[in-house]
């Protein structure tokens, strides 16, 4: 009997052992080597600008960088991906939400610290905020980048990310990449567009872009020949710049703002003999010469603002609240001497002698210039890709689809509804230009779809719903009037 009990007890004991000692570690990672098909992600490098860097709301900060599309792709394929992380709130000047109602922005003046500055090799993420196509080939530091060479404005991000180890392209190739993405050219038109067509006065010409982009492709081909390898190369194309919230937010809001009495303005302007009516803005490109004034002006009535045939930038929001007032605040704020012919005692933005500043307006001519540049660049990108065996990720088409869906209720992705509208649309960070972390998930999926199609791969798509939001509240809280409140210098340091 005792023997029997011993037997039973030892049976219990062994059962306990077997059950409790099993650590259930037999779950295999979903990401396996085979999923990338013929694409080799052993050494994965991304070249680009601020979007590639994971720049959001005016700076780079870790909690956004870790969701850059490059990071997300690297995670899906399970490869190492080194990033020049900066702890939150980033390198300084992060835009945050100060209050929801009224919607008020605030610039966080504190900075984080670099977390990966001593990484000995080049970073896998070679996206540099502000980089033009020119810079990928030629910029080695803050004083050889295009913004210094052409407008004497050093861009410290080049020092921070390149660290004296050569240009973006040189560093990318120094890593002996087995897979490379190149998404460049946005800034070659964005700089023009976001400055209302003033600085620079024209986008990079298609001819220049052809040379520069071709030069990058040539560099990659040389590497292929010299190394005897054949890395996979994806190139992103340029999304339509004039449809981003940086341009599409202020104008329509002004058009329907009940505080602006458009019909009274029209009557007043017609009474004073003006040929057209509406918002009157300074215009160096198109515009009307009224005779007496040493500058040309343009007109945008409420219909033009609402439909977006004339665009006002987010930067202009600061001064949109001053329309109709006798003010020269724009010139005071920016230390600009009041130009000849301007009379700041006239109603701001509604009188030809006190026009709304040129730098905040993208008028129909400028929109055409921007759109032509985008089309031209995208043709070049497609052509170069075809010649060199690169594959195009058609970000432009994806963005246009999302934009088109705005008017039918938006696009639901992994359970989250998205629109291209400012902040609430969920696709853009607070600067109105750069994608949110979740939008990076959408972008990463566009890249992954091309990889899967062209390299016989089966990489799982990113679950966009699992990516956290990237818009922060500021610590301070204050009320003003009932408008979108953007401090006048909020966008001054913005890079693209």
């Amino acid at each position: 009997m005792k023997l029997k009990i011993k037997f039973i007890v030892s049976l219990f004991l062994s059962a306990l052992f077997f059950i409790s000692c099993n650590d259930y570690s037999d779950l295999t990672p979903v990401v396996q080597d085979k999923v990338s098909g013929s694409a080799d992600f052993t050494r994965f490098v991304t070249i680009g600008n601020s979007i590639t860097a994971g720049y959001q709301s005016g700076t780079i900060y870790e909690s956004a960088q870790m969701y850059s599309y490059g990071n997300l792709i690297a995670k899906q394929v399970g490869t190492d991906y080194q990033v020049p992380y900066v702890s939150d709130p980033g390198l300084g000047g992060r835009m945050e939400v100060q209050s929801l109602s009224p919607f008020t922005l605030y610039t966080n003046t504190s900075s984080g610290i670099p977390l990966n500055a001593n990484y000995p090799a080049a970073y896998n993420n070679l996206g540099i905020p502000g980089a033009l196509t020119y810079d990928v080939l030629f910029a080695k530091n803050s004083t050889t980048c295009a913004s210094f060479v052409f407008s004497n404005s050093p861009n410290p991000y080049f020092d921070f990310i390149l660290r004296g180890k050569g240009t973006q392209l040189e560093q990318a190739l120094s890593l002996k990449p087995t897979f490379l993405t190149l998404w460049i050219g946005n800034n070659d038109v964005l700089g023009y567009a976001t400055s209302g067509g003033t600085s620079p006065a024209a986008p990079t010409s298609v001819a220049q872009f052809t040379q520069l982009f071709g030069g990058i492709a040539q560099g990659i081909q040389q590497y292929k020949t010299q190394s005897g390898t054949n890395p996979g190369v994806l190139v992103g194309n340029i999304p339509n710049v004039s449809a981003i919230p940086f341009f599409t937010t202020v104008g329509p809001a002004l058009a329907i703002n009940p505080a602006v009495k458009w019909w009274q303005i029209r009557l007043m302007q017609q009474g004073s003999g003006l040929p057209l009516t509406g918002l009157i803005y300074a215009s160096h490109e198109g515009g009307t010469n009224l005779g007496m004034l040493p500058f040309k002006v343009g007109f945008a009535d409420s219909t033009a603002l609402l439909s977006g045939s004339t665009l006002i930038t987010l930067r202009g929001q600061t001064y949109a609240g001053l329309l109709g007032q006798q003010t020269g605040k724009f010139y005071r704020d920016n230390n600009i001497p009041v130009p000849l012919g301007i009379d700041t005692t006239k109603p701001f933005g509604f009188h030809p002698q006190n026009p709304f500043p040129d730098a905040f307006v993208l008028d129909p001519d400028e929109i055409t210039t921007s759109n032509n540049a985008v089309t031209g660049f995208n043709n070049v990108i497609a052509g170069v890709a075809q010649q060199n065996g690169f594959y195009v990720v058609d970000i432009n088409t994806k963005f246009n689809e999302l934009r088109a869906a705005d008017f039918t209720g938006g696009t639901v992705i992994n359970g989250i509804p998205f629109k291209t509208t400012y902040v609430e649309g969920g696709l853009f960070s607070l600067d109105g230009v750069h994608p949110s972390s979740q939008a990076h998930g959408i972008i990463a999926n566009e890249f992954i779809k091309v990889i899967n199609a062209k390299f016989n791969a089966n990489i799982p798509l990113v679950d966009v719903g699992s990516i956290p939001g990237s818009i922060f509240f500021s610590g301070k809280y204050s009320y003003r009037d009932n408008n979108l409140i953007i401090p006048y210098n909020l966008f001054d340091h913005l890079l693209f």
Partner: protein
Amino acid sequence: MKSKLLFLIITLLLISTNALAGGFQLNEHGAKALALGGAFTAVANDPSAVYWNGAGLSQFSGTHLMLGSSLIAPQSSFRGVYPDITKYRAANLVFFPTHFFATHAFSEKFSAGFGFTTPFGLGTEWDSDWIGKYLAVKTQLMTFTLSPVVTYSPIKQISLSAGFVYSFANVIIERKVQPSTILADDAYVSLEGNDNAAFGFNAGLMIKPTSFLTIGASYHSQVKYGFTGTATSTGPAQLQSQLPSGDISAELTTPQNIAVGIAIDITKNLKVSADYQMVGWSSYDKLEVKFEETGTVSSSPRLYDDSYIIRFGAGYRLNDQVSLMGGAYFDKNPVSTKYLNPSLPESDRLGLSCGIEGRLFDNFTITGSYLFIRAKQLTVSDSEEIYSGLGSTFNGTYNSSANIFSLGFVYSF
């Protein structure tokens, strides 16, 4: 002698299995019952019969007091969210549900008893930044009951009991909320409530058709709690007006339980028992909190199903002083994987228990038992619990286990 000692040590290490039942029911009311895998409905031969089966009080004469406590140390982990397999561990918490029973036999026919137990309770705590932070961070529920029981035995072979249950309870639910998928900031919401008076009843039956066979049955009614308390939220000032605060109320009905069991004396010294227990978990269909100031109601479906527990136990009387016990049970998961929530990781559970009872003096008995519970690894792929954006379902793999030690003292006079 040497082998006997080894045997005892092994037994002490192993002592008994039967603690966390399905859902948030606790069945740790007595070290002996625990040691027998909870197959105690037809045994009920110590003062914990007040809980297990009041009819069992007819088996003893005189007055008995029993005090005991269990140490429950559950462990839970979650791996996910699918397809990711990152492992998250719940904090290792330790609970000490305590019980007290007193019984007195007035005559051969009439007995009465009184019990204090913790029939329902749970506690889970996850890191406040873990992936499921919007589903659960800290969850804690404790119910306490005071229960008088009377037992009547019209003939020697049959006894009946009826009891009244007075219960009080408190609950804490803490988790983060995500005001919007586009915001990086979130807020921490804490709900705390209690109910000072809820009522229920129980009944028991014990039949001894022959000298070696006992049949037992017990019924525990539902208890309906109405919690009142407060909500507090901490988060960005910008969100203050949108976060829950102020007085709240919530209702919770704990399930009814019907148990039937048999006990057989195989030899003079060996008794085996088996129980089937039906747990009416369908009472737990939703978790609903009402915010009194705004009148808004936050409701999440739970939709538990009725479930069952099958229990086996064996007790062997080594000599007049020492008895050894062992048990096992299977506890069916009452919740559909759709609604499985990390506040209460659930799956089918297997319990293995053992225990030792020693009569130190004629009127003083001490019982120690150990129970190990292994919850079956559960992989959820059809979750309807949302952990972030609207469509982000909380699919992944749960693993849980628990170690339970129980110690009880019975003093008779």
